[in-house]
């Protein structure tokens, strides 16, 4: 395999130096705290924005995204129960026991 051209070697050298620096920065307690705060904030902001936007959609007599998500979660819970029951019936029918216990 031929050696990379000079411009690529330069880019790789810059990356090689930047990576540990950036990684050290990310690992710094203050930066890590900032990133964690950003993640939590994103979660909180989305939750805070949900109520007014839901009210707006409801004023238009339309379901909000959170209504649909709630329904999907309920359907998923139901599907999970059905799945467990189906597996229990199938295992009983096929006389399958928990293997290797």
């Amino acid at each position: 395999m031929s050696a990379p051209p000079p411009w690529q070697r330069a880019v790789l050298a810059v990356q090689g130096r930047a990576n540990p620096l950036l990684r050290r920065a990310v690992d710094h307690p203050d930066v890590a705290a900032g990133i964690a705060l950003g993640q939590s904030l994103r979660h909180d902001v989305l939750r805070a924005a949900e109520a007014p936007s839901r009210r707006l959609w409801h004023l238009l007599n339309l379901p909000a995204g959170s209504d649909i998500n709630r329904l999907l979660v309920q359907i998923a819970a139901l599907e999970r129960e059905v799945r467990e029951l189906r597996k229990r019936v199938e295992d009983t029918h096929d006389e399958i026991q928990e293997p290797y216990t």
Partner: protein
Amino acid sequence: MIGPVLRATQVTSHRVLRTAERLSRGARRAAFDLAPPESPTPRLQVWSRDKVRLFRYVTPEGVTRRDAPPLLIVMSLVTTSLVFDLQEHNSVVRRFLDEGYDVHLLDWGVPDAVDSANTLQTYCDEYLPRAVQATLRESGAEEVVLFGYCLGAVLAMLSLAGHERMPVRAMILLATPVDMSELGPLTSMLRDRRLTVDDLLDWSGNVPPERIKESFHLVEPAGEITTYLSLWNSLGDPERLQAHDALVRWSSGHIPFPGEAFRQMTELFIHQDSLVTGKVPLGRRIVDLADITVPVLSVTGAKDKLVPAASSAPLALPGADLERLELNAGHAGLIVGRKAHKEMIPAMLEWLRVRT
């Protein structure tokens, strides 16, 4: 005098042409989906439960099947199992098939809201033992060889330790995360309780793929540059471009991580360090890694940034014949690429040949 000028003109025009060719190939790639087909090696689905599927690969013509236990590949929960069979000439599955092994792959599927309640027990006590049973039924063998990759190695290990009667001849563990403090910023934030599991879950109760991708970017913040350089270099050669696209498609194709399993792993593996101590509470019992008594090969990559060798180093299996192998590769490089096929996979095959 004219000679050097002519040569310089020739070199420059050659470079201009190569660049134009690369740009045109890049434009076509951006405009059309030129991705190679998924899983090029023929396979049959031989068992399924919920979203989990067990595939058995078809032995290529002319290959005599070896008198050895079938191989059961166990994938991580973070990405898809495409990595094992990226391309015809870049496939660890194909390589094992060519060596005469009967290869099975356990694919967890793509979790949705229904699977958000899946716990480690779901994978280690329900799916995996049944998949082993199905593999034995399908192959007519009496034992299997477990081949776990990344988090799949942890699942394979826990399942075997928790089911002493599981008929396993040997186990290969690739890039096994044991000491989670070595895994990068996300685990550190969870460990320091700066971040809670709930901050990461979406409406479906799972950790969305974007969060997983972000956490990997934090591990290697300037890592994207290498990807773009590799793309630029690959644009000059259609075969290399296909290989690049296949790898990028896999490495960026994260899937949702089941929320309950993530919560449990955070508590057990990050806060309690239970993989380091070797005693993992699962359900109503404590699974002791010391109960593993089969030969184990733990392979790590010296260049692995996602699961550094230091993370696998504390792996202790006092009851097993544990051999460690550190290879000069990154996370995917252990099984993908020219070097993997030249050095890594032959090393695993040789270990396996002696044990089976």
